[in-house]
């Protein structure tokens, strides 16, 4: 399922910097994600991996740096360059995101969670939006839960609804921010199964995860981050054959 080396780029991050107060979280990150590529980002907590993911769809605005997507530049940009900037909202409509805490809308049903953006962003009619939403709920195996509210669903089911909510917008890239970290161990499998299916279907994915089994299996491009910088990147061999001592130390600590 891996793409070729020269896959057409979909997203390119250039020289991304981000600070929270005195805390310099991202120190000039560059990253290119190719069409159909499955990027796995891992590293110790506080290394900036979630922030990096969140700058990709500009949920977090970088202090400087540029996000290139589908021929347009987004974000604050790079000093000295004078390229036209796209609107963050346009970028987010084409990039899906799945959160650690699911963040389903608790006041509406599973179906309405998935249909909301179809109606409000794509301006679809209610009947059409609901049919499309039901199809995507079926895809994640939750057609029987259309009328359920998030509080009635297990964590795994909630996360699958959240994935459907993103997928229904037909994004070109899916971002996953530790999608299984908040789940009970017995519920991790069902979410990973949905992600595996998605990966096999050719979706471009960027995943921040601690699930090393999944990372090994799905990651075409694996990125180890620490203290706001990319320490090491590599293909599948990275997991058995890391060059950087910091990467090796991390593997030893978690395995």
């Amino acid at each position: 399922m891996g793409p070729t080396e020269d896959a057409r780029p979909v997203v390119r991050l250039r020289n991304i910097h981000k600070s929270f107060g005195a805390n310099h979280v991202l120190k000039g990150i560059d990253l290119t994600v190719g069409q159909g590529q499955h990027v796995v980002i891992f590293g110790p907590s506080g290394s900036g991996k979630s922030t990096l993911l969140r700058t990709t769809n500009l949920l977090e605005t970088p202090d400087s740096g540029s996000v290139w997507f589908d021929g347009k530049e987004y974000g604050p940009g790079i000093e000295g360059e004078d390229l036209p900037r796209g609107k963050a909202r346009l970028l987010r409509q084409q990039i899906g995101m799945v959160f650690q805490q699911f963040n389903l809308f608790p006041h509406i049903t599973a179906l309405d969670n998935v249909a909301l953006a179809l109606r409000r962003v794509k301006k679809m009619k209610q009947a059409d939006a609901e049919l499309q939403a039901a199809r995507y709920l079926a895809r994640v195996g939750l057609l029987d839960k259309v009328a359920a509210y998030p509080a009635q669903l297990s964590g795994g089911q909630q996360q699958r609804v959240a994935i459907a909510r993103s997928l229904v917008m037909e994004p070109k890239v899916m971002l996953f921010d530790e999608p299984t970290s908040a789940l009970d161990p017995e519920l991790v499998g069902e979410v990973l199964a949905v992600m595996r299916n998605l990966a096999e279907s050719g979706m471009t994915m960027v995943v921040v995860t601690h699930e090393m089994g999944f990372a090994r299996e799905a990651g075409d491009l694996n990125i180890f981050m620490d203290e706001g910088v990319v320490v090491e990147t590599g293909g599948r061999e990275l997991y058995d054959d890391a060059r950087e001592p910091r990467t090796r130390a991390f593997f030893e600590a978690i395995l």
Partner: protein
Amino acid sequence: MFDFGVRILAQARFRPEFIWENRDVFLSGVRLTVFIAIVAFALATVFGLAVALLRMSKNRLVAPLMAAYINIFRAIPLLVFVVFVYYGIAIQFDVRISAIQAGILVLTLQYSAWLGEIFRGGIQAVSDGQTQAALSVGMSRPQTFFRVVLPQAIRIVIPPTGNMFIGMIKDSSLVFIIGVPELFRVSSVMANRTFRYFEVYLGAVLFYLILTTAAYFGVKYLEKRFALVDVLTTKVRSPLARRRGIRLRMLQEAVAAEREAESSRTATAI
């Protein structure tokens, strides 16, 4: 001997029917009380939401200004405020304003401050993750606020807001001091004319009780109305919910059939 007059009054026979005989006077007061409470509360709800939003503004001027507004208007006793506006400001600056308008104005100003704080609490109780999720699917900031944050905040603020409405009904009696003929004013005028103090004020108490009890049940109804009900697994009584259940079931069947057809098509292809 010097309490002679008082004894006579105290010995007057209790005539509960007095309340019924003067129901029209009471009801005219009730009507005005309800009018003032509803109008002032509706205005205070709108302004309160504005106060809450401005209070959360990132603007360095607006947010402290709203904090000051809230602190000042919460701190002035309502009775003093009413008198100050109607006899103080209105006369000094020659503002033509009726007593009813002045009363509504004062109640609105003060209740906007209270409601503003309640609404701010409700809005801030909705987790930031909700906003992020809505933005992440491409919704705009206003859509995110009105479709995702506000509906959740409303559910949170219904009980405290209901309490405020009951408070408004009671506080509206304070505008009696500037001569607004609401329930308490018409009662006290009647009492002074007829000397039937016990019957009159008992009547006033009963009418206030009826109004606040009605408001209480109204709040209960709203809470129920906004409760989340799964129309497929719960026995639903409302025809609207039942129709929704039927629609969802049809939707499920349609999608299931679609998937069935698709999987058999791929099977034949193989």
